[in-house]
């Protein structure tokens, strides 16, 4: 149990219907096909920390992010905010402390609104008067490095990708949240702009003490900005620990393969894993990674390992002493 935990999840699961069922299908006895985007995730996020959620497409990381900012409701399991369980009754209140920066800056701003309206939208629930809202707006914009006078009346189509993302960040911080989920905040940006935005995020975190959940597929970004890393594969959390530990000595075979697949400017030795990311409709039995794992054992094929503490972190792998879910 982390000291000062802000968010805690218990068996968090989210399933989606694979396809819409017509009337005839519903009446028939055929069981509906579900996609388990997030499968029994146990996660804790400490106050002020930056947790990177790393995974590839189909890992469930975006869905987990949406669950944690209450934009999706869990199919099973619970989420606790400041030790308070999230339910329909307190969802609105809890939501006030959460914000999100979305993946595609071109799509995350309303094209019909100007920058001022976009940023001030988050301020409406606080009952501030006009002058206070204006000041909050100006402060937020300055904090992300944009001049309020120049940008207040601009529309998204007059902004570059980096500027749009800054506006999205300004919108997120304007309401003074405790927790910010950032979903691939720099993936759609050029390298030089990405560096500017990452520096900005670090600066804001240091200054205002937000708790970040940064969702990314970019290992270098995760390594740079995070205190801890959570690795997801096919809806399951497979490794969780401090960034330094995981980057220098990854324990889960998938984490190892992932790190060896990242091209760097240092060495030229890429060692990707074999096989492909699994279908979530028909995931492999037992441990989801077993078809691609170089260390696969019999138990891996039949039983899904649970996330268990191993030395300084948690791993879900039969190579290490672990408890089973069943």
């Amino acid at each position: 149990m982390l000291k000062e935990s802000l968010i805690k999840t218990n068996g968090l699961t989210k399933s989606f219907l694979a396809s819409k069922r017509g009337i005839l299908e519903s009446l028939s006895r055929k069981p509906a096909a579900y996609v388990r985007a997030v499968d029994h995730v146990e996660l804790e996020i400490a106050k002020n920390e930056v947790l990177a959620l790393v995974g590839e497409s189909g890992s469930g990381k975006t869905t987990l992010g949406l669950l944690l900012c209450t934009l999706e409701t869990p199919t099973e399991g619970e989420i606790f905010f400041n030790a308070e369980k999230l339910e329909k009754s307190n969802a609105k209140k809890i939501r006030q402390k959460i914000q999100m920066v979305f993946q595609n800056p071109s799509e995350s701003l309303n094209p019909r609104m100007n920058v001022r309206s976009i940023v001030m939208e988050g301020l409406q629930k606080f009952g501030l008067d006009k002058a206070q809202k204006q000041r909050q707006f100006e402060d937020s914009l300055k904090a992300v490095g944009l001049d309020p006078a120049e940008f207040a009346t601009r529309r998204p189509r007059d902004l570059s990708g980096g500027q749009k993302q800054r506006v999205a960040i300004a919108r997120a911080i304007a309401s003074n949240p405790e927790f910010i989920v950032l979903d691939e905040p720099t993936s759609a940006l050029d390298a030089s702009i990405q560096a500017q935005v990452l520096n900005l995020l670090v600066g804001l975190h240091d200054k205002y003490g937000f708790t970040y959940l940064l969702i990314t597929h970019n290992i270098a970004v995760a390594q740079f900005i995070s205190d801890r890393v959570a690795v997801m594969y096919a809806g399951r959390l497979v490794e969780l620990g401090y960034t330094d530990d995981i980057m220098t000595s990854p324990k889960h075979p998938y984490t190892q393969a992932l790190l060896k697949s990242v091209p760097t400017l240092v060495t030229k030795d890429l060692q990707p894993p074999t096989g492909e990311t699994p279908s979530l409709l028909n995931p492999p039995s037992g441990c989801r990674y077993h078809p691609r794992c170089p260390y696969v054992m019999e138990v891996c094929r039949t039983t899904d390992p649970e996330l268990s503490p191993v030395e300084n972190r948690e791993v879900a792998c039969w190579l290490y002493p672990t408890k089973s879910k069943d």
Partner: protein
Amino acid sequence: MNDRAPQRPNLFTILGGLGKIRAAPVPSTTTETATLTEQTPSSESSSSSRIFRTLTRDKAALAGALIIAVFLLWSIIEGILQVVDSFTKRTDYAIKILGGNPLILDFTHSLIPPSTKSVAFLLGTDYYGHSIWFSILYAAPRDALAGIVVVASGIIIGMLLGTSAALFGGWVETVFMRLTDAFLAVPALVLAIVVGILVGTGFESVLIALIVVWWPTYARFFRGQALSLKRRGFIGAARLCGTGSFRIMFRHIVPNSLDPIIAYAALDFGNVILSYSALAFLGIGVQPPIPEWGEMTSSGLSYLPGAWWWSIFPSIVILAIVISFTLVGDRLQEVLSGRIG
């Protein structure tokens, strides 16, 4: 996701399609990498300047726009005068401005072919001595009003039902959409006739009949737009900001749904006028002696080919106006469709 709602297929939509073949292609912007968005800002221009540029480029659409402008302008003037007359009951400005009376029976001037001898005989007269020219002018405002009222109602009803269906989902969506399907399942003209018969004759009845038939297409359209907009980041951000569902609907979803719908509505205007005329042709709606283009076409049928002017001129007017709306609407769709917001 298709951003063009199913159009009511009719001859004029097909003819309108010809305009598209002739139209100049819209030049594309640079094809640099799609993934990265560090393009210089303002690579998109505002809708109004694009519309203006596309219209001026296409001569046919420009001609259409001119015809529409004349039609609407005249309808407004004549329409206001007709309303004034009906209130005061003693003036007849609407008729004075024409220069002749389309309503008076005058068998001495029955079935006169078109001639330049007098303005009244410009397009000939019908069996009852009514001037075709004056009748066409007198009937115009009603068609324009029908177009405006029906399309606007379609948009409003469709917006409320379609957007809520998409936003709220669940049983709300199911009920609304099944309702839409039910209405769409009945052939439009048949439904309009049935409603017309139920509600009785008269201008208002026709409008009601047309509105009943027209809203489902817009409901579908709005629902489609809303569904695709729902996934966009700014909707999620609005929810996190605590914005209520109705505000999300009217502040975020509807304004960004309008572009392709407005374009379609421009095209649809012509369809409404066509259907209105068709109903008038069948005898539903405003009754003689008040002239209606569709009714004139119908009445003049038995006098073809001899007194051809009675049927032909009103139908040419209908044709010209509907084609104009189709041409302009088509160009608008090219500019505005596929750009949500």
